[in-house]
């Protein structure tokens, strides 16, 4: 039991380190391509956190959708833009002071409110692995019963977003 707890702690700190380091790369890399590539370990780390928290379906979806689709989409757009725009895609930084103050205040307020709150678990959490088989079935049932309306709404939103993206990105016909 204690070995499991220590392994859990070790895994969390390792993953948190990976996430924060690669996020630093995302926000400071000079080239957009490098920033987009730095996003990959960050998203993989978040997927690993989902695994630690018992969300096995979320882990798979995070890797499929975020790492597999969104990052590739961003890389694809970056490569497409590199052909249109001359001089490469450099993403320098501006308003550094404003960013530091704004993000620091936002982050600080959230952290202070976390430290001032006492969280009390309702019941003792079970080990994540005990939900391993049931996770998918339970989420599927929730989506088709309790969260049916959000599920349908998100389907419509996906469709609209797809059509909108095609219309926006299409070349204007020559007049």
């Amino acid at each position, binding site marked *: 039991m204690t070995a499991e707890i220590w392994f859990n702690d070790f895994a969390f700190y390792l993953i948190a380190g990976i996430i924060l380091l690669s996020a630093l790369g*995302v926000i400071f890399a000079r080239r*957009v391509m490098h920033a987009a590539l730095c996003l990959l370990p960050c998203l993989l780390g978040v997927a690993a956190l989902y695994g630690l928290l018992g969300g096995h379906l979320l882990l798979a979806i995070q890797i499929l959708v975020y790492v597999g689709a969104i990052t590739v989409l961003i890389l694809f757009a970056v490569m497409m833009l590199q052909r249109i725009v001359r001089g490469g895609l450099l993403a320098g930084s501006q308003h550094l002071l404003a960013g530091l103050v704004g993000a620091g205040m936002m982050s600080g307020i959230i952290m202070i409110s976390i430290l*001032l709150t006492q*969280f009390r678990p309702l019941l003792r959490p079970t080990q994540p692995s005990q939900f391993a088989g049931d996770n998918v079935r339970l989420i599927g049932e929730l989506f088709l019963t309790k969260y049916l309306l959000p599920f349908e709404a998100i389907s419509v939103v996906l469709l609209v977003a797809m059509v909108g993206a095609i219309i926006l990105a299409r070349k204007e016909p020559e007049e």
Partner: protein
Amino acid sequence: MPLSLPPLPPAPEIYLPGIHVGLSHYLLLSAILFGMGLFAVITRRHAVAVLLGIELMLNAANINLVAFSHYLSPHSNFGEMLYNTVLDGQVFALIVIALAACEAAVGLAIILALYRNLGVVNPDEVQSLKW
């Protein structure tokens, strides 16, 4: 007559997280990640990099949802009675992931259209509606 003041409210207590990982650790990590994403959104000069910052912020919110779902909801070792209330946070996280996919697709399409029509990189320079 001595002036009697109402007693001061007790000073708020700070619950420092221990070395063992709990809910606070996940929330603090997510707060830091959110701040980094916000920093990227404010400071980057390239619209795609701003989108990357937004992705960071969405992931931070997702970590929060899943962590709350794991630590603050009733679990049951046996029986299936409590299962329905357990995974709501993960359902919300899935919805957020779907919305993030929409946002990335539409955002990149808008950036492409901006490049084509205005030839502008920096989101600060898009001011056709501003005189």
